């Protein structure tokens, strides 16, 4: 236990008897003496607290900053995901209009959208276009120093998050491994404060150092993340010609926007082993790769040929195949699948992919609690239900992973740590049954609901 402020004060008071004049003044509560001691004790207590937390971090990433530092090392970048929408355009003018990709639209809340797939629309016709909720910002940086791993920090936007970025004339590389000397590459990194920066290479080893005075143009797309627009929302051109007259309304959101990973998701994602790079060298952990890039998901499970054949038997078609079961709120399956295919193919294009429909499975759990008579049994039952639903419910971090299992030892630990009534000497916990006879398949999205939870309380002597 960390030493408390009062304990530190007591230690100082034990010493004060050696100074009789001060001891007298301490006894009457002279603030000249007591306040100084109390302030020092408060600081020492805070340091003691921090040491306590740090000691525990050998086993557990307790502080948020540790999780962020870990995420930074593992290359989890704090990018937002832009909302992608399909927009119906009706040409109400007299002449044909063409909407080119890259044209800027505004929605009725004033947010900027950029057309990604345009269309030529004849007078009176109705067509659909695709647009992304991003806003382009261009930064020109003048290189001030010729040094290895020259780094440019990027300012966060006033509103929203950075969704993607590109450096004019330079190629992105996820790491400096396997990069030819002289190649015009850059790397994107983040620090424990979630500040994004661009890093260039080292001359004669990997990549190229930009020379002094060189102008580097960086295009940054900012997005407002989760905006949840409603169907029928109107769009307008940012600038339009006098002859252009159109009615634009939102038809469908094909990908919901999202903020960068929050700290809880990050904690979960970073619990994967550290040794993993985004290429085919480490042929595993595609779950981590995909989860890192399309967070937040409702459910994601990725498994390989071996696991597939364990549950459904061998098949020639399974050779060199990865199986993906995924579910993400407010996102059209086709868009999501295209994105995941792209992510996996970029990492390793030798795999074939198969998307498997997610099957939701509710797990029945039966728990008997022996509650001491001095406690309110109904309240204890309620707190156990709440704990179960928070940790194993549909939206819990636990449920998001494939093949998640409820371990009885975790349940005992969870209850003992959070329900005081169950730590009493005469109290007892019995996990009578978890799950049923249903075989566990990798595409099963398993969770506990209030209905599937059966908590019985029995009075303990």
């Amino acid at each position, binding site marked *: 236990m960390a030493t408390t*402020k009062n304990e530190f004060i007591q230690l100082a008071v034990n010493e004060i008897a050696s100074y009789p*004049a*001060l001891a*007298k*003044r301490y006894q*009457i*509560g*002279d*603030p*000249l*003496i007591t*306040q*100084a001691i*109390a*302030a020092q*004790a*408060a*600081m020492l207590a805070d340091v003691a607290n921090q040491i306590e937390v740090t000691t525990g971090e050998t086993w557990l990433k307790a502080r948020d900053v540790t999780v962020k530092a870990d995420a930074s090392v593992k290359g989890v970048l704090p990018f937002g995901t832009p909302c992608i929408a399909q927009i119906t355009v009706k040409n109400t003018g007299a002449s044909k209009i063409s909407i080119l990709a890259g044209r800027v639209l505004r929605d009725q809340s004033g947010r900027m959208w950029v057309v990604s797939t345009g269309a030529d629309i004849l007078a009176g016709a109705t067509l659909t276009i695709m647009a992304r909720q991003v806003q382009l910002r261009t930064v020109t940086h003048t290189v001030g120093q010729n040094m290895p791993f020259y780094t440019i920090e990027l300012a966060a936007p006033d509103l929203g998050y950075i969704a993607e970025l590109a450096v004019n004339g330079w190629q992105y590389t996820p790491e400096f491994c396997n990069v030819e000397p002289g190649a015009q590459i850059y790397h994107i990194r983040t620090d424990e404060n979630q500040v994004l920066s661009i890093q260039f290479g080292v001359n004669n080893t990997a990549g190229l150092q930009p020379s002094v005075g060189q102008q580097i143009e960086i295009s940054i797309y900012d997005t407002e993340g989760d905006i949840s627009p409603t169907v029928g929302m109107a769009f307008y051109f940012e600038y339009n010609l006098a002859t252009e007259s159109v009615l634009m309304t939102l038809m469908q959101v094909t990908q919901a926007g999202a903020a960068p990973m929050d700290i809880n998701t990050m904690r979960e994602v970073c619990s994967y082993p550290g040794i993993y790079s985004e290429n085919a060298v480490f042929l595993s952990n595609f779950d981590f790769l995909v989860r890192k890039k399309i967070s937040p998901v409702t459910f994601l499970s990725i498994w390989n040929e071996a696991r597939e054949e364990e549950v459904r038997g061998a098949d020639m078609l399974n050779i060199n195949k990865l199986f993906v079961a995924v579910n993400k709120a407010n996102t059209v399956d086709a868009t999501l699948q295209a994105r995941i295919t792209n992510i996996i193919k970029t990492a390793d294009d030798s795999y074939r992919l198969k998307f498997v429909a997610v099957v939701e499975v509710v797990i029945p759990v039966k728990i008997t609690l022996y509650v001491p008579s001095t406690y309110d049994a109904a309240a204890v039952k309620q707190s156990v239900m709440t704990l179960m639903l928070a940790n194993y419910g549909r939206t819990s971090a636990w449920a998001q992973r494939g093949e998640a299992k409820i371990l009885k030892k975790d349940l005992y630990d969870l209850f003992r740590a959070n329900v005081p009534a169950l730590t009493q000497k005469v109290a007892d916990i019995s996990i009578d049954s978890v799950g049923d006879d249903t075989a566990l398949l990798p595409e099963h999205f398993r969770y506990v609901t209030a209905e599937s939870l059966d908590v019985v309380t029995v009075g303990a002597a």
Partner: protein
Amino acid sequence: MAEALNTDLLFRMIAHWFATKPSSYYGSTYGNPLEDMLQKPLSSPIADSFLAKMRQDIPVLDALPPGTINLYATPGGIDIMNIYIEVAGQTLSLQDLSEVSRGNY
């Protein structure tokens, strides 16, 4: 060595309290809430809460017999209020408190 506890020490405590703003000491609200007096009508009973805070922060003042510590206010013009602290018959204006040396503890 002179007696450690005397009236002078009381004045030093009060001067120290007066020179300290609340929350200057880490983890403590010890200090004089002078800013609270700003924008208050001169006629309001500010002296009471001021004195209450002082008694709370300097426990020895509470241990003294009732009436030993008094706070007086006299109007000194349109927007001036002079506040005096009286301890055991000695009176000191808040204006002059800065001249009371805090000393070597």
